[in-house]
């Protein structure tokens, strides 16, 4: 078995080398790429299968980026052309897609697919070919534990860092006001749990005692037991590592038990457009981290929201914004380095991204050696019946309300 695998790998490697060598021979006059050749950006996306919904969102984000760049005259005077393959949400397929894009189609740039499960195998291919690999999804920590040197995650923060601004705020409160106890409930899911546990770790280090720590399976529909535990602990603050419906259910269950914490933070759910109606408008004071909001004041975001809405008829959501951000990072690198093709250029692009900060629709981004972004998510709060940015101070729309009013 092992020998067979090895043989296959050698065969693949040999094949790839041959393709590269042939391409190298034929492409002798290619090096100077005339200025009207388009810059081809290769992408494999889950346009069908399990991830087709977010996959199509990511596709729209890339399309919006290409259009906005081209309307301004392209990159380095060359038009940007997207070459998108459908990986059918399949991790095996994604590998052959990137092999094809890089080896056969000779794209100039590759950018990432959607979801952690597909980002890791795709990044491995890009790494083998020494290509810069900026990706719009894959926030789980596993992505950054693979030793990739060319990968950069184009979003403000990985799951564990989503609540960093909030942790800083809580621990910065004067001793008398600072919460003493906290209750955590998180879905058994690396992303949702990562957000809650990231905050838990920081608060525990800061002396906030954990009194409830519950993990529930993704299919849980009855939250009354968990809510009873949290309510009877009378924890000062409650933190939910939630997706959408579980967050709604948990909040309703807590309200049914008349539990009134000083602070309530839930990931994802409160930022959804249906959230307020789902919990009967009892939203006052609920906090949530958000990676992207159409209201973020960064200059390129204003342009993005306006032009995206004109192109697609509705404003962009987080998936679209993440893809657009990916495009922005690539564009910044290409413009600064002055090249966009396979070969030596790629290493220059990687080095540039590693050492620079890029202004994007989600704010300034920079990365550590593993490609993990160095930022944190903005914190939004339901104040006066609408969700508004409250942290960090330089992006806030209104002041954070603490302790929160009764819900």
């Amino acid at each position, binding site marked *: 078995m092992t020998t067979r695998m090895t043989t296959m790998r050698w065969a693949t490697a040999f094949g790839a080398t041959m393709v590269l060598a042939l391409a190298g021979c034929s492409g002798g006059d290619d090096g100077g790429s005339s200025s009207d050749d388009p810059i081809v950006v290769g992408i494999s996306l889950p346009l069908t299968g399990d991830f087709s919904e977010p996959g199509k969102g990511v596709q729209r984000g890339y399309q919006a980026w290409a259009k906005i760049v081209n309307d301004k005259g392209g990159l380095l005077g060359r038009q940007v052309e997207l070459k998108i393959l459908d990986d059918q949400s399949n991790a095996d397929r994604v590998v052959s897609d990137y092999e094809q894009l890089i080896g056969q189609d000779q794209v100039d740039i590759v950018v990432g697919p959607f979801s952690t499960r597909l980002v890791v195998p795709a990044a491995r291919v890009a790494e083998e070919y020494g290509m810069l690999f900026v990706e719009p999804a894959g926030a789980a920590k596993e992505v950054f534990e693979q030793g990739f040197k060319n990968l950069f995650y184009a979003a403000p923060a990985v799951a564990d860092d989503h609540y960093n601004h909030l942790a800083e705020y809580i621990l910065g409160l004067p001793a008398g006001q600072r919460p003493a106890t906290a209750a955590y409930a998180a879905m058994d899911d690396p992303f949702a749990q990562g957000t809650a546990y990231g905050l838990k770790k920081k608060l525990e280090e800061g002396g906030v005692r954990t009194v409830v720590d*519950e993990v529930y399976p993704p299919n849980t529909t009855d939250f009354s037991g*968990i809510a*009873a535990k949290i309510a*009877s602990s009378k924890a000062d603050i409650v933190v939910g590592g939630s997706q959408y419906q579980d967050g*709604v259910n948990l909040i309703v*269950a807590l309200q*049914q038990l*008349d539990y009134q914490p000083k602070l309530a933070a839930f990931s994802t759910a409160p930022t959804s457009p249906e959230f307020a109606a*789902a919990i009967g408008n009892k939203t006052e004071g609920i906090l949530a981290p958000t990676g992207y909001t159409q209201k973020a004041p960064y200059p390129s975001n204003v342009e993005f929201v306006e032009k995206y809405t004109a192109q697609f008829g509705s404003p962009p959501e987080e998936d679209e914004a993440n893809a657009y951000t990916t495009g922005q990072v690539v564009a910044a690198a290409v413009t600064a380095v002055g090249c966009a093709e396979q070969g030596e250029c790629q290493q220059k692009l990687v080095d540039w991204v590693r050492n620079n900060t890029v202004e994007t629709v989600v704010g300034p981004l920079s990365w550590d050696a593993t490609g993990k972004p160095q930022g944190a998510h903005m914190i939004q709060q339901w104040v006066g019946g609408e969700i508004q940015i409250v942290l960090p101070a330089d992006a806030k729309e209104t002041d954070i309300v603490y302790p929160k009013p009764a819900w």
Partner: protein
Amino acid sequence: MSSGALIFQSVVLGVLLGGLYALLASGLTLYFGIMRVVMIAHSAFLILAAYLAWWSHTRLGVDPLLSLVVTVPLFFGAGVLLQRLLLSRLRPATLTMMSVLLTFAIAVVIEGLLGYAFTGTQRRIQLGYGAANLELFGARIAVVKLIAFGLAAVALLTLYLLLKKTTFGWSLRATIQHRDAARLVGIDTDRVAGYGFGIGLATAAVGGTALALDTTIYPSLHWHWIGPLMAIIVVGGLGSVPGAAAAAMLLGLTQSLLQIPLNTTWAQTIFYLALFATLAFRPQGFFGGRLAQRF
């Protein structure tokens, strides 16, 4: 320590949960009693009723409880047709086995149609009184849970009176106890079985509506319910409605109390532990006679 209060709160939640389980399991045990049919699709019909309640609330603006006026007769009719047209055609020798396959197929069809009509998105009825609650000796009782419990109690009481006090109930119980003997005394067992099936499915309509009041629903949710419900009717004694009710109450309460020391995932295993213990030590069930001798 507030743990006394937590235990009392959990007991209250457990009783409310147990009441719902009792209603949901009663139909399931009835089918088995009447026809020795294992009705895998029972929980799928439950979710279907929940969706109908959600749909009538969201699209038509009617209170979910009012949807019962339509769903109960509708499900009764569907149950009669299901029994007469499909299940009664199965060969008696392989009835139990084949009914699993047949109703499994029905469950998958319902799930698929729900997914097609309403997508896989999780839904929840948004009621004005969704978070309203009453206080009882320090414990909080959500109004919606109380309504669900009330529905379950009324439905079970009706079922009990129907089976105990009416001629139809007697003939149904006679059919459950001894089909041939029932036929000998002149009971049209085929017709009775059809109506019995209809009643079983009508309980699913009530149960589904009660369920929809306070939980999230999605098309594949029924797989999550069928396991615990099957465990309840085996523990209670297959075919025995009071047995199912007692087992449901006991297991609901245990599950709720186990959530205090354990987490949600482990608390659910009580159903399977109870199922295992029943099959190993008392296969006829702890509360009912062997294959519903009583009731």
